[in-house]
């Protein structure tokens, strides 16, 4: 999952080529990689690729702070994980 998300962010969102290759713990907010429209692109990608659905309350900066943070968030929201959590 880290590779898939890192590839997408590197390909679609990183404007400043000097930031590549992108480390999984690089801050996407402090480096300016992720802006408002970038987040929307990322949300659309994550929903389609991982079959999750994001609500307004999920749109917190900490969920998208880095590739690692995004992966943690997606893992917590994946359908299988939700069913397992629900028991």
């Amino acid at each position, binding site marked *: 999952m880290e590779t898939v998300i890192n590839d997408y962010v590197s390909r679609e969102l990183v404007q400043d080529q000097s930031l590549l290759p992108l480390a999984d713990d690089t801050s996407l*907010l402090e480096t300016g990689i*992720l*802006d*408002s*429209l*970038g*987040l*929307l*692109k990322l*949300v*659309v990608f994550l929903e389609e690729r991982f079959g999750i659905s*994001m*609500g*307004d309350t999920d*749109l*917190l*900066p900490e969920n*998208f702070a880095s590739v690692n943070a995004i992966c943690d968030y997606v893992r917590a929201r994946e359908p299988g994980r939700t069913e397992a959590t629900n028991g």
Partner: protein
Amino acid sequence: MADGRVARLLRSAEGVAYWGAVAPVLARMPAALGYRIACWRGDWLYRSHAAKRANTERHLRLFLGELSRSAARHAARDWFRFASCEAVDVMRLRHRARPLRRLVEIEGREHLEAARAGGKGVILCCAHFGSYNSALSVLHTSGVPVTTIGRWQYKYTAGMSRFERRFWDWVLARRVRRHRQRPMIEPWPGRIEVAALAASALRDNEVVTISIDAPPLDADKARAVDVRFLGTHARLVPGVVTLARLTGAPVLMCSVYRSADYRHQVLEISAPVPMAGDTAAAFGRCVAEVSSAIRRSPASWVYWPSPVDFDNLGMTPPNRYTTPVRRLIPVGV
């Protein structure tokens, strides 16, 4: 300097008195009388704000070359009248906006309904043009779920006291907020969730409004594109196009025109604007629509008095005029 400060304080006090005490009374009068009195106040401001009047008239002539001197003077006077009438519009938003609904006609509603039938929501592209906040409230109370992307001016105008900010929130923002489907989506620097919140409203087949003529914030300047606007070049942020492409929502234009009697208004909604081509080209079509609305009713555009806003928009007068905007008289905040 001291005179300037006193004059600014007096103007500020007059504005507070008008919005806080006079306009609510005018809004309860018969419309013909209430708006007539608002126009008198506009005429008084036109006469007394020499610098603002001069800047408005000069900008009108610089950017709308076809305007004669007397037409520019007339449009500048109307600019002050419209600003006064806007306060009355806002005060008529009480009782689910019924008092204002009687005065605002919605044209092109069929375009909006056809676009919403697609189920992907609608982006209503506006400008800081006419009494758009109140007119959009009327649209919302007529049964269309409206959410607005925008910043309240009073929250980021430099030099405003806490009291003034609270006052504008109480007198203006809370009345408009009441007639929106969701809280205003405010694109401040660092608020990365803005576009995703708008997409969420669109996903629920709501109408999201966005004004495309705002001077870009420093944080957004890198995303701004060069477009033809009012016969010259301007730097504007094409977020509306990206949002439309990512969500599949159609983009419709909307403009609000005030009639010659000053009390009746028309909210015009266009057919969808084609989003084909590159981003700058698609955005250029939206900006061209705004330009033509401004040419149709020059007095309705809010930015005319402010050289700072023209600078932030990256606008310099078309070549046929040689007076640089920077030489115009600066207006105090």
